[in-house]
Structure formats: structure tokens, C-alpha cells
């Protein structure tokens, strides 16, 4: 008994000694960490900053050490006026909005249903795990494989250069995100609520719509926003299947540039317009990002 108490006492002594050492180390460490933090924040934000600066410069200020507005160069809103006068960007913004809202909604409806099925029911063969894996396999397939078949199919369906084609494609490639996020969220709902409703004679569909879906509404919103952001940023299929009418923002961003060389101002303004939507979306769903991006490996 006393031997045990001694051991605890000496261990406590060591702990006290160690904690003073630790304090000193921690002070040094915190300086290091703050320095790292500043560096990381600078490194991460610099491209956004540069894009904004480009958007407020005169062309002659593009080159050399022109980093700070008013001090090193005189800002101007001319690039924004030029952007505003372009009819195409409004069309592109409209297209991108239709495509990303449409694709996110389709993916969400399909994904919510599938997620509820996987989370609540037992499948014998294929098992629930295999079903999840099957949906996740979408996430690892390289999209470039689908360029050729999709192009030929879409040409056959007469959907080239329409937003419908892009809605189809983006919904397909974003389907894993709602499935991943919502499967976990549905599992977290206490089963008793649904059992109670079942006892009251509610149908499966009613239980799903009236009880399960409202409880995971945050997850549904998050998945929708994630899908929206990814569809908005999608470039490959937009590039492959559109010509003029259905050009989404990323293709517009790429297309305008090729015709007139490197136009810093155009890149700056377009970049700001194009990126603002997914960035705002990202900040809104920041807490759930881990789950969505990582095959749901870790809860975020």
C-alpha cells in the first residue's frame, strides 16, 4: 500500500519537474508556431490577394514589384467595368448556376435515398459495406476516362452544348458526397424515433420524409452546398461538351484568355467572380468538409 503511494508521489515529483521544462519549451514553441501560422496564412492567401490586386490594376502596373495598392500603384475599377460590359459572363454565370444547382439537387435526392437505404436496412448480398464501396468507387474513377463515351452518348442524345448534359455528368460525379455524409448522419439518428412512428402506423416513405429527413437536414444542406461547389468548379466536362450556349464559368474563364494572350486584369476579375461562389460555399460547410472529402473516414 505504502509502496504504491511512494511510487505515485515520486511520479508526481517528476511530473512537476517536467512541467517547468515544458513551460519553457512551450514559450519557445509558441513563438515558432505563431511564425509558422503567419507564414501559412500568407502562403495560402497570397494567390487570392494577387488575383484581387490584378483586378484593380492598370495594365502598365502588371509587372515588377507592385504589391500594395495606393502605395505602389493607383487602383482602378476599369477591369470591373470591362467585365461588366461582357455579355458572355452573364450567360456563363447563369449556366453555371443552373448546372450546379441542378446537379447538386439531383445528386442530393438520389444520394439521400441511397444513404437512408444503406443506413437503415440490412442487405444480405451485396452487403451494406459493399454497397457503400460501390458508391464510393465513383470518387476514385479518373473522370478523363469518361470523356470519350460521354461525348459520344451526349452527341447521340443531341445534348451537346446544353446545360442538361452538364447536369447529368456533374450529378453523377458528385453522387458519392451525399451518400457518404448522409449515411453516417442517418446512422446517428436514434432508431427509436422511427420505431415509434412505425408503431403509429406510418409508412416507410412517411417515416423517411417526415422523421428521418428533417433530422438530418443540416447534413442535407451541407451535402447540397458541397455538390454545388464541386459542380461549379468542374472544368473537364464543361470543356468537352460545350461550345457557346452552355459554357459554364470555368470554361468561360479559360476560353476568353486564349484569344487575347495573358490578360492579367481579365484573369483577376474573372477569377474573383468565379471563385467567390465556391469559396463562400466552402466557408459555410467548413465543419463538415472532412467527412465529405475523405470518403467519410473521420468525423469532422
Amino acid at each position, binding site marked *: 500500500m505504502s509502496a504504491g503511494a511512494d511510487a505515485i508521489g515520486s511520479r508526481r515529483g517528476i511530473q512537476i519537474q517536467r512541467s517547468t521544462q515544458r513551460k519553457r519549451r512551450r514559450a519557445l514553441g509558441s513563438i515558432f508556431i505563431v511564425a509558422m501560422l503567419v507564414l501559412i496564412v500568407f502562403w495560402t492567401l497570397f494567390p487570392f490577394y494577387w488575383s484581387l490586386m490584378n483586378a484593380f490594376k492598370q495594365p502598365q502596373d502588371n509587372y515588377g514589384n507592385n504589391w500594395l495598392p495606393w502605395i505602389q500603384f493607383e487602383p482602378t475599377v476599369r477591369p470591373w467595368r470591362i467585365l461588366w460590359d461582357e455579355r458572355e459572363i452573364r450567360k456563363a454565370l447563369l449556366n453555371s448556376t443552373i448546372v450546379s444547382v441542378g446537379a447538386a439537387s439531383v445528386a442530393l435526392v438520389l444520394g439521400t435515398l441511397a444513404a437512408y437505404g444503406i443506413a437503415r436496412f440490412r442487405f444480405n448480398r451485396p452487403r451494406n459495406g459493399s*454497397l457503400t464501396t460501390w458508391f464510393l468507387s465513383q470518387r476514385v474513377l479518373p473522370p478523363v476516362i469518361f470523356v470519350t463515351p460521354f461525348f459520344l452518348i451526349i452527341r447521340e442524345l443531341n445534348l451537346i452544348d446544353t446545360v442538361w448534359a452538364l447536369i447529368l455528368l456533374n450529378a453523377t460525379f458528385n453522387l458519392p458526397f451525399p451518400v457518404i455524409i448522409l449515411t453516417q448522419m442517418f446512422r446517428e439518428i436514434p432508431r427509436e424515433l422511427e420505431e415509434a412512428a412505425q408503431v403509429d402506423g406510418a409508412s416507410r416513405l412517411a417515416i423517411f420524409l417526415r422523421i428521418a429527413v428533417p433530422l438530418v437536414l443540416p447534413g442535407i444542406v451541407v451535402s447540397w452546398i458541397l455538390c454545388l461547389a464541386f459542380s461549379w468548379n468542374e472544368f473537364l466536362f464543361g470543356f468537352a461538351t460545350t461550345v457557346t450556349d452552355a459554357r459554364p464559368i470555368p470554361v468561360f474563364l*479559360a476560353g476568353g484568355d486564349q484569344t487575347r494572350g495573358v490578360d492579367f486584369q481579365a484573369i483577376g476579375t474573372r477569377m474573383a467572380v468565379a471563385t467567390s461562389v465556391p469559396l463562400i460555399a466552402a466557408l459555410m460547410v467548413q465543419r463538415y468538409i472532412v467527412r465529405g472529402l475523405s470518403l467519410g473516414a473521420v468525423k469532422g
Partner: protein
Amino acid sequence: MAQLESTGAIPPLARIERARATGVEATSAFRTWAPKIAIAAAIGVGGILSFALPAVELKGGETLSIDTVGNKLVLAGSGWVTALSWFAGVLAVVAAFAFPRSERFAQTIAVTAGSIIAMVTPYYVATHLSVIDPDASGLGTGLIGAWIAFGVAAVVPWVSVLWLNRSQTVFGRDWPKWLFLLPAIIWILALTAFPLVYALTTSRYAFRNGRINRFVGWDNYRRMFDVDSTSRAIGGALLWAGIAAGVVLVAGVALAWLNDRELTAADVRGVARFIPIAAVPAALVYLLRTILKDPLGEQLNITIFFVVVSVAIEMVLGFLLAMLMNRELKARGALRAILTLPIFATPIGIGYLARTIFYEEGGPVNAFLGAFGYKVPWLSDPDWARIATIIIDVWQWTPFVFIIALAGLQGLPQDVLEASEVDGASAWQVLRFVTLPLMAPILWLILLLRTIDGFKAFDIPSGLTLGGPGRATEYFSLFNYRTARKFFNYGEAASQAFLLLFIVMVLVSLLWGRIQHVYEEEEVKQV
């Protein structure tokens, strides 16, 4: 609603009751297997008939075989018809055998739908006879036979469910669960699985100006490979696999011995599990580098370089950063928010923006370096252009590694970490023996995702360098895309894409065992 019943062991009586209700035990081997075999036989007979007998009758009494008809369909731009028939037929047969009796609803639906969709070829040919041949007078016996056989296959599962294996509940008690899954499954089959099959069809044709030109068999694949170097490539690949395995074994055993000055069988087994992860990629890289013809081989080389370097940097930086931030920090939430921004920045826009950042005459990076007397040819020199793409990739995706690794670190059991600290383990020992082993599955997962996404790199190089200078940054996806869309060689592009799919599959299967259990939570426990 059986699936919502409480969990737990089923008492024997209840089990018998349930068996009676679903009719599981009332089946014999004959009743189980007869429908499956009948479905397979019907679809098989349909397939054989369509190949053995004439497919289309011509007016003069002559006939066309299914090969000719299929070819003409593909040349007319309707290759999806035959591809769809194949796809649906195979799907129906697989569904017949894959599903157990308890999932007979899904089985019935899949077999019926597959068989009906497989009828698309006879139907399409019958309605588009003039496309096949101006002289065509009607369907041949082969396609009519196939039509009937597929129809039989569509009916057999219903015969089984309603008569041969009938029970009180036609589809079992919880069949509506499939209604939740079916929309998504059908969507993916139609828009992912079928396009892959269709890509396989197109990869066997030569294209000219975006139009299918003629059937070339496996030539598109053969043209990718330098067949003469096969034996050399395989020999070298085996050698490299051996070297990699040896290095891993020696290094791993040495490390294991250094840890505790003793070597157990468990140590060796632990090391041995790493051998395939090193040996298979080593062999694969050597094999592909030797056997692939340029430019494909060259573009794959630079892609592998890009992927290995950028992923290595991202993993190390991201994990270090996560370790650094895994403590009480007031700014952690804000920092995480800032670090999510690059992941969501429109990648093609970042590519173009990077072009202005790396602009050689007076861009910000060179202006900054100019103060120290350096000037880097970021975009005109092949090596620097590759480095520029890697820097942007690192910029965009290190946060991804960071955020997931940080979430993983925060999810670690704190008591284990504290216990090891109290026991006097040094920071390094905690990292090496506690944190890393616990984090391993998540780190493997990030590695897999990042590696695969690396092979997908398309937006950044096409924005930053347009694949240039020359083809220095034309990574595989971009190269493949250009084969398809710039040179309109869809056949070759499809065959190259299958090479990429093969590489991705190898990577996934190598690492899958390590990450599978991370997210595949325990099966839904219910009756």
C-alpha cells in the same frame, strides 16, 4: 417493418416463424438453382443464336451476320446499341447468380430489366433497317431468336417468384428497402458503368475526324505497347520488384530490431505486409516505362514524377502542419477556415492565376526573386514548368491533407496519448509508437486519395502551362483529353484511358485493405 425490429439474438422459435413467413427453408436445391440456370441459359442461347444465325435478311435472299450489323451500327454512330445489349445481358446473368433468395426483389427487377434492355439490339435493328442496309427486308432468324430468348429470360424470375418459389410474401418482407437504393443504382449503372462498357467498344475502333471509321480490334491497345521489349520489361520489372521487396524487408527488419533489440515473427510479418506496397508500384513503373511507346510512355513518366513529388510534399507538409496545430490554439478554427479556401478555389482559375504569378518578366515571384538577383524561367523551361505545376498542386492540396489529418489527430483517444506521456515516453516515441500507428489508416487513405487525384490533374496544367513548354507538363489526363478532343482520336483515347484506369485500380487494390475498415462501419445490425 422487420428491419426496424430491435437487435439481438433471435430466439429459435422466432427464427422458425420468420423462416416460415419468408419461405427461406422451403426451398430445395432444384428450386434455388433452376431459375438461375434458366435465366443464364436463355440469355446465353439468345447470344449464341444472334451470332450463329443470320441477323438481317436482305431482299435478294442474302443475309448479314451480327458482326456486320454491329459494325454498321457502330459506323452509323449507334455503337451504344450493341454495347447496351452486352452490358444489360451480362448484368442480368450476374444478377441471377449474385443475389441470395432473401434479395429476390432486386434479383427479379435486375434480371427483368436487364433482359428487356438487352432486347434493344433486335428492336433497334428492326426499326432502323434502312440504316443497316438499303436492301434489308427484315430481321433474320438469329435476332428474332435472341429477341424471344431475352423475353424468356425476362419472364423466368417471375415464374420463380410467383410459382416455383412462391411464399406468402412475394418478395420477402423488407423488399421496399430496395426502392431507396434503386434510383441511385440505376443512375450509376447508366452513367458510369455503361459508359465504361461503351468506352471499351469505342476503344476497338479507329476514328477519323471524330467519326468512327473502321473496326481495328485490339490495335489501339497494341499500338500503345512496344511488343518487342516485352521480355526485357518483364525481366526488369521482376528485378525491380525484387529490389524494392529486399529494401523494404532489410530496412523494416533493421528498424524492428533497433526498436527493442529483438526480432519476433510478428515483426517480420508486419514488415512483409509492406512489401507489395513497395514492390508492385516499382515493378509497374518500370514495366510501363519500358513497354509503352512514346509519347504515351513519356507523358506517363512525367505524370508519375508529378504525382510522386507533389503527393510526397503534400503528405509530409500536411501531416507536420496538422501535428503543429494539434494543440490548444485560439486561431485554430480561423486557420482551418482559411486553409479550406484553396481546396475550393476553381482549379482552372488557379491555373490561369498562377500564370500571372509565375510570369517571367516582372511577375510577383520573379520580381521578389529579382531582389536577390535570381530570375527563374518558370514557364519556358520544362523542368521549372513542372516545378511550377507541383507548387500550385501543393498549394491547393496540402490543406486537404492537413484538414483530414488534423481531424484524425483530434479523434485519437486522448487517454492513450496521455498515458504514454505519463509513462515517460519522449515526444518522438509517442509519435512513432502511438500516434503514427493509430493514424496509419487515415494517412493511407489520404495517400490513396491524393495519388489518384494526382493522376486526375487536368485543370492546373491546362490553365498554367497548357501542357507546355512542348509537352513538358502534359500530364496523363491532359494528354488523354487532347488525344480525344484535339486529334479526335476517340478510339485511341479510350484505350489510353483504360491504361489509366488499370493503374488506378492497382493503386486502390494495393491500399484498400489498409483503409477499408476506417469507414466501413459495422454492418447495420438488425434482423
